[in-house]
Each structure stands twice: as structure tokens, then as C-alpha cells.
């Protein structure tokens, strides 16, 4: 390794590995540069916007919030109340009970005084059987519709919601997410801004809420978790959302809108056939399919993205749940990329086919595999005595220093933009996490992603239970 008399295959491997590492690092830096530029422009624009215009206007778009729920009995009452009290007038909330085994539906019926509702018209996306649809007798909850259906998974529940929704835009969320009170006001604005291109979807930033304080379904105090696993995920989410997605929005190549919080143009969603129930990465798959549809129909469109922290979610704290989540994410990526493989390097899909899809293929799908190959190659070099320890340590320090640089750049960006982590203690916790992450969290994520490959090959299709610990509540 590093000497000139190496066999050709070894030299070739080393050359490719180095080129791969340099490309991935350069792309991160380039995306970060674009993100920071776009963030600055967004914040400048946003300081002059008056979102309350939407509260008093009869022309504000009508939205249907769809919240699938599976065994959420412990928190569903409070979560639905928080959805019903968002700062927006023109919306309905559709809670889809996806065949929960607990008492979710009974709680909803009792709390919200639900009575059966006969629907005149239901959409055309095929779904599992709907057992009953309910609405509240209490006028205070007239925005609420509850659907009880056979279990069919999150995608199927979302499709039921889309079929039942009355409004032109659907907002798909995780029922246990904590939304900012103004989340809908901010999410809907992009749909009204562009006149020459149709905005087909808008996504918002998701942040980690572990150890944050929640009152009446609203986040009132932001804290950094003491536990290392969720703490590093705070940093990871900040990196992904602040220094990644904003750049893809600027390039108009965004492929993923988080399943936890995103709004979609219903007409296009329905034209595309709704969520794909055969994948566990239904959020990414839908966005890719909608974009593909618009390209194939030669319709001008865009996908928008809001950098404000509007949605807060709970990150896994246990290794087991973390593994399941990341394995599922990898399987979702593989399934989406495979389903839409025709787009790969296809100039017909312009930037999407030539940049976005290849980027996801090489740097999201392939990266964990490349790392595993790297580890195996290193072990091989050690065993056959070809290891050049000088270069090994030098390259390790090179990669480590880059990882630290990128995390500190993320913290700097957060500091100069949203500045949510105001306490010095919290900042130091995040800084510490940046130094520990490459040794602790990164190997775990590579392992979980690799497990995703294995699960995919084995044909696993399950979501895996995501047991929530619940948020700290202020009484």
C-alpha cells in the first residue's frame, strides 16, 4: 500500500478507492457551499415575509393532513389534539388507524365523540379494506376524520388518506412528530410562489426531539440529549438537512422528502398511483416517481424545501431499534433506485438522471459497501504483509480531520442561521459528538446499512418495530 512495486490489481483498487474518497469529500463540500448560500438567501427573504396573510385569506390553499397510526394508543389523544391546533384555517386532519392491535380507535372514538360517516366519493388508489370512517359530533373537532382500516403498512394507510382527502394538497406526517405551530403556513407557501413551474412537493426539516421539553403537543425547550446515540443523531440530522438537502433544492435535484413531514400536490400523487406499498422507502420512492412522471409528461415542475426546523421527531436510543431503522432506510434506497433504474445516467431525465440518481447510487447506496470492502482489503493487506502503516495512519488522520471539519462547519451554519442550541453546554455536547462520531457512530451506521443489503437479499420486507420512548413532557 503506497509503494510503487504493488501488483496491478492492488494499485488499481487503491487508485479507485482514493478517487472515490476524494470525490465524495469534494461533493460534500460543494453541496455544503451551495446549501449555505441558499440558506442565507432563504433567511434574508424570510425576514420580510408575513405568513399571517394566509390566516385571513379565503384564497389560502386547502390542505389535508394525513397521519397514519399503528399502535399509538399511548400518545394518540395528545398527538391528534396538537394536529388540530395548528396555525392554519383551511385544513382537515385524517387519522388513519392502520389495523392497530391496541385500543387506539377506542380512545379516538371516546375522546373526539366520533360517529360513523358515509363517504360520497373515495379516490381511486387501490388499498386494503376500510372498516369504517368517522367524524366528530363536536364542532370543535370538525376538522377531524378518522379512518379505521385493515393493516396494510404505512404506504397503504397514506393511500387511504389520499383517497379520502377532499383538498388539493396532502400533507403526510408521522402522527408522533411534534410540529411547529406555523409549520403549515411555511410548508404551503412554495405552492403559491411559483407561477411558471408547478410545485409538486414541499419538504421540511426534521430535527431530533429526544430530551427536548414538550407541552401540549408543542416543543417549548430545545435540549441536546445526554445519551451519545441520539446526541450524534442530532449532529447527523443537522448535517443532512442543513448542508445537504438545501443544496439539492437549489440544484432542483431533491429526491427525498422525509416521510415524517412533507406536502404533495394531490393531483400528481394520484396520477402517479399514490404511495408504493411494495417498498419500505415509500417516501423517497414517491418523490422519485412524481419527478419521473413530470419529466416523462414534459411538464415544468419543481420540488421545494423549507430549511426552518418545523418538525421534531424522536430518534432511536437503543442499538437494536437504530439497526432496524437504518436497515430499512437502506432497503428503501435500494428498492427505489432499482425501481427507477431507467433514470440512471439517462440524459432524458436531465439533472435528475445525470446527477441526483447517480449521486444516490454511488454515495448513498454504494458507500457502506465501499467501506466494508475497504475494511476487508485492509485486513488482507495486513495478513499478506503488504500493509504500509505510514500511509494507513496518514489516510486515517486525513479522513478523520475531514469528518471533524464537516461537523464543525455544520455547527457553524446552525449557529449563524437558526441558532436553536443556545446553551453553551449543548454546543459543547455537539462538539464532543463530532470528535467521537467517527469511532463510535459511523461504524454502527455502516454496519446497519450493510445489514440492509443482507436483509434485502434475504427478502425481508418488514418495517421493524420502532418503539418510541416518548418525549419529556412539561405538566
Amino acid at each position: 500500500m503506497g509503494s510503487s512495486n504493488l501488483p496491478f490489481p492492488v494499485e488499481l483498487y487503491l487508485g479507485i478507492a482514493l478517487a472515490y474518497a476524494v470525490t465524495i469529500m469534494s461533493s460534500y463540500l460543494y453541496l455544503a457551499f451551495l446549501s449555505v448560500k441558499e440558506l442565507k438567501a432563504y433567511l434574508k427573504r424570510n425576514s420580510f415575509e408575513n405568513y399571517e396573510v394566509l390566516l385571513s385569506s379565503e384564497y389560502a390553499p386547502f390542505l389535508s393532513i394525513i397521519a397514519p397510526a399503528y399502535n399509538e394508543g399511548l400518545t394518540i389523544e395528545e398527538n391528534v389534539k396538537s394536529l388540530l391546533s395548528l396555525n392554519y384555517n383551511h385544513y382537515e386532519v385524517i387519522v388513519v388507524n392502520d389495523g392497530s392491535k391496541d385500543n387506539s380507535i377506542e380512545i379516538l372514538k371516546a375522546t373526539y365523540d366520533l360517529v360513523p360517516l358515509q363517504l360520497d366519493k373515495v379516490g381511486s388508489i387501490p388499498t386494503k379494506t376500510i372498516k369504517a370512517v368517522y367524524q366528530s359530533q363536536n364542532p370543535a373537532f370538525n376538522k377531524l376524520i378518522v379512518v379505521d382500516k385493515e393493516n396494510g403498512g404505512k404506504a397503504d394507510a397514506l393511500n387511504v388518506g389520499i383517497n379520502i382527502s377532499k383538498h388539493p394538497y396532502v400533507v403526510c406526517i408521522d402522527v408522533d412528530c411534534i410540529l411547529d405551530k406555523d409549520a403549515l403556513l411555511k410548508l404551503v407557501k412554495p405552492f403559491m410562489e411559483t407561477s411558471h413551474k408547478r410545485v409538486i412537493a414541499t419538504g421540511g426539516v426534521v430535527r431530533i426531539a429526544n430530551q427536548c421539553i414538550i407541552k401540549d403537543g408543542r416543543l417549548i425547550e430545545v435540549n441536546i440529549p445526554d445519551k451519545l446515540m441520539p446526541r450524534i443523531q442530532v449532529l447527523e440530522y443537522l448535517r443532512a438537512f442543513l448542508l445537504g438537502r438545501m443544496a439539492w433544492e437549489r440544484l432542483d435535484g431533491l429526491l427525498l422528502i422525509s416521510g415524517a413531514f412533507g406536502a404533495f400536490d394531490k393531483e400528481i400523487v394520484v396520477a402517479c398511483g399514490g404511495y408504493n406499498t411494495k417498498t419500505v422507502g415509500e417516501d423517497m420512492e414517491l418523490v422519485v416517481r412524481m419527478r419521473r412522471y413530470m419529466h416523462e409528461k414534459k411538464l415544468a415542475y419543481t420540488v421545494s424545501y423549507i430549511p426552518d426546523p418545523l418538525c421534531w421527531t424522536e430518534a432511536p436510543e437503543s442499538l437494536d431499534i437504530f439497526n432496524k431503522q437504518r436497515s430499512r432506510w437502506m432497503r428503501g434506497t435500494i428498492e427505489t433506485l432499482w425501481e427507477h433504474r431507467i433514470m440512471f445516467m439517462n440524459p432524458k431525465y436531465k439533472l435528475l438522471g445525470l446527477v441526483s440518481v447517480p449521486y444516490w447510487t454511488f454515495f448513498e447506496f454504494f458507500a457502506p459497501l465501499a467501506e466494508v470492502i475497504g475494511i476487508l482489503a485492509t485486513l488482507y493487506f495486513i495478513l499478506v504483509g503488504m500493509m504500509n502503516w505510514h500511509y494507513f495512519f496518514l489516510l486515517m488522520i486525513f479522513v478523520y480531520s475531514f469528518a471533524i471539519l464537516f461537523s464543525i462547519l455544520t455547527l457553524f451554519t446552525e449557529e449563524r442561521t437558526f441558532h436553536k442550541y443556545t446553551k453553551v453546554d449543548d454546543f459543547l455536547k455537539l462538539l464532543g459528538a463530532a470528535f467521537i462520531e467517527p469511532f463510535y457512530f459511523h461504524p454502527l451506521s455502516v454496519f446497519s446499512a450493510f445489514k440492509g443489503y443482507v436483509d434485502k437479499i434475504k427478502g425481508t420486507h418488514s418495517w421493524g418495530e420502532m418503539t418510541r420512548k416518548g418525549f419529556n413532557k412539561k405538566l
Partner: protein
Amino acid sequence: MLAYSLQFFSELDPADFIIVGAISVFTIVSIILFIAIVLSRLYHIRQAVHFEKNSETINNLLLEILFNDKNHVDLMEDKKLLRLFSIPQFRAQLMESVINLHQNYEGEYAESLREFYVESQLMADSFVKLRNKNWEIKCKGIKELTEMNIKRAYEHLVELSKSNHPILKINALNGCIKINGPQGIIHLAKHKYTIDLWTQLNIIDALKKTSLLDTQNIELLLESKNNSVISLGLKIIHTFKLFEKQSHVEALLQHKHARHIQQEAENLLVNFNSYGKEIN
């Protein structure tokens, strides 16, 4: 140190040089970013301290203006205030306080604040902002001048409303409306850029807030060649229930227009007819 570093790097072979060089760059940039974060926090703390200190002075100054009938000339007899007035940060904070306070007062108090705004050259500061190259500074100037209802600014605002920058356009149009009521947007009939729905709703919201309700000539918007302007005109007629403009909407339907305009006009007429029936 520098000599040692140069010697160290000159002795490296090319591959080592690149890797060690990159590590050094990453480390130095990380340290710079860390220092920048610390400095940014310290700057904000210092700003907050200054803000607190200035707030006390500004509050006293505004109390003198509002309740003791003092004017700018009286206040400038105080040497300390005279010196503070030359500090840009103080003037910016004073401007913000005067504007915010003006939003909460009417009548005599509002007039006192307006006089102070004009005499203290804060108004001149706002006009300078209108000429700034940055759109966001222009927007600040617009906000200040329109809050103080400076009629002289109207022509400048009309010019700025022709901008292609959406936020500057919204702010300038809102300013036109604030100063001149619905008449402040009649010039949009000749507007060439598309006015998106967000801008349209901002204009309608500004109209709702104005006390001037002279809707004469608002129908001119329906004669525009710009579909988005026609759509805005229809929305204004609908929102403010301008039944007297019904004939203009009917006339609009006599000509061929884009389908969504046709639809909007038809819906408006249906709405008006149902209101008519309700009233009868």
C-alpha cells in the same frame, strides 16, 4: 515555527505532501470555524448588552417626545444624545423603536413620533435605504416610510413595485397601498411580470388593513394584458364584495381569456348572484 513548517513540508515526498497538506488545511479551517462560532456568540452577547444600554436611553427619549412635548431640537441640547445620534447602531435601534411605537399609537402621539422621524433625519436615512443596491435594505426603507405615511415616497414605491424581485415587489406594493389605498395598485394594470398567488394575497391583505377604501378604477386591473393582474383584480372584487364592478366582470367574460381566468370570473359572478339572493 514558519521556517520549521516550511522545512517539514519541503522534506515530504509528493504523496505525503498532499495528504499532510490536506490534513493541515482541514485542521486550520476547523479551528477557524470553532473560533468563528465562539466569536459569533460573544458578538451576540455584546450586541445584547449594547441593545439593553441603548434601550434605556431610547425609551427615555421617546417618553420625552410623547408625554413632555419635546422635539428633536430640544433633545439635541443634550451632548450625550447628540453624540449617540451619530452612531449608526444607535440610529438603527432608535429607528426600529420609533417605527414599532408608531404602529401602536394613533392621533396626537403618532403625529409627535412622525414629526420626530422627519426632524431627526431618520426619514432621510429611510430615503437613503431606498437607493441602496440590496433589495432587503430597500425593503427596510419602504417599511419605515410607509409606516410614517410619507407621501413623498409614493413615486419611488411605484418604481420599486415594477421590480422583478418578488419580495421587493410585495413590499413596494404594500407600501403603495398603505400610502394611497387601492389607487396605489392601479398602475399594476400595465405590469409585465407575473404576480404569483403569494404576492396577490399579500396585496389583498394590505388592502384589508388600509382605511382608504376608494376602489374607483380598480376594474382597470381587469383590462390588463397580464393574466395574473386580471386574477388579482377578480380576487379584490370578490374579497371586498364590490358588487358595483359586476358589469366589468361580465364584460371580461365577453372576451376570450385563459381557462383559469374564465373560471375565476364565472365563480365570482355565481358568488355575487348567491349573495344577491341571500340579501333579497
